[in-house]
């Protein structure tokens, strides 16, 4: 049967690439490759710390930590009691006065 699937299979079989010969790296790539290896040895890990993906994730995490730490302050300033600050100020003044 010469179905579409059979035709596609025969097409792929005919199109399969023949094995390539040994490709030679361009001039200077060996030196740069060794330099990349030496750098990874010096940093002690396979990925340099300024790797784009790590840096991006680090920035996002730092932003989240800042947001979480600022949330109580933001929440506090949105308090509608007009005398809240005065009570807090008076309370802190009393505490200072009581210290020996």
């Amino acid at each position, binding site marked *: 049967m010469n179905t579409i699937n059979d035709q*596609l299979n025969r*097409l792929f079989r*005919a*199109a399969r*690439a023949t094995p390539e010969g040994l490709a030679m*790296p*361009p001039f200077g*790539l060996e030196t740069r490759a060794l330099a990349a290896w*030496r750098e990874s040895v010096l940093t002690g890990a396979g*990925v340099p710390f300024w790797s784009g993906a790590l840096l991006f994730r680090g920035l996002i995490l730092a932003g989240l930590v800042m947001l979480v730490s600022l949330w109580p302050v933001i929440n506090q300033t949105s308090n509608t009691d007009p005398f809240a600050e005065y009570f807090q100020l008076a309370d802190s003044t009393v505490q200072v006065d009581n210290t020996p």
Partner: protein
Amino acid sequence: MTDAEVTACLVRGRAGDEKAILDIFHYMYPHVTRLVHANLPARESAEDLVQQVCMKVMANLHQFSGKVPFLHWVSRIAVNTCLNQIRHEKRRPELRLADLSEDEVMVVEHLATTANELDSADQVGAAELVAKLLDGLRPADRILMKLLYLEGNTIEEISSMTGWSRTMIKVRAYRARAQLRRRYLLLMKEKP
């Protein structure tokens, strides 16, 4: 070079033998070149990408644990780099018979009129036709079709090379194959 030899070279490399690291580099370079050229559209600069992949492999050689074959580990880096490169390219329009060269039209004729394998004279036309059919697929599907049908890798090998799960590969292959059939059927319908 076997995987055991790669591991031995890596151990010597960590001890300071840079010639061993160069041996690994020369071993993986033809494989990277073949993968990148096979998976990148002809209009893209493959040489730059080959060098980019090589640098990534060398910078991350420390992370090779030996749990997967070394060339599969290299392939994973190469495939993901190619995918990042071609991910944002625009989808090609539908393939029409008028878009095909004479050789490619001959291939379509031979496929439709006979159940025999294509002969060597049709090889070039077949390769070009396959490239045009695959061009209309999503980048990841295109790479999968090449790994599966052009390079003859098994699902397990592709999973090892790409990091994709076997289920994802099967689903993706089924969907891509259906799309290929649809593109090929469009050509057949236009045939006089």
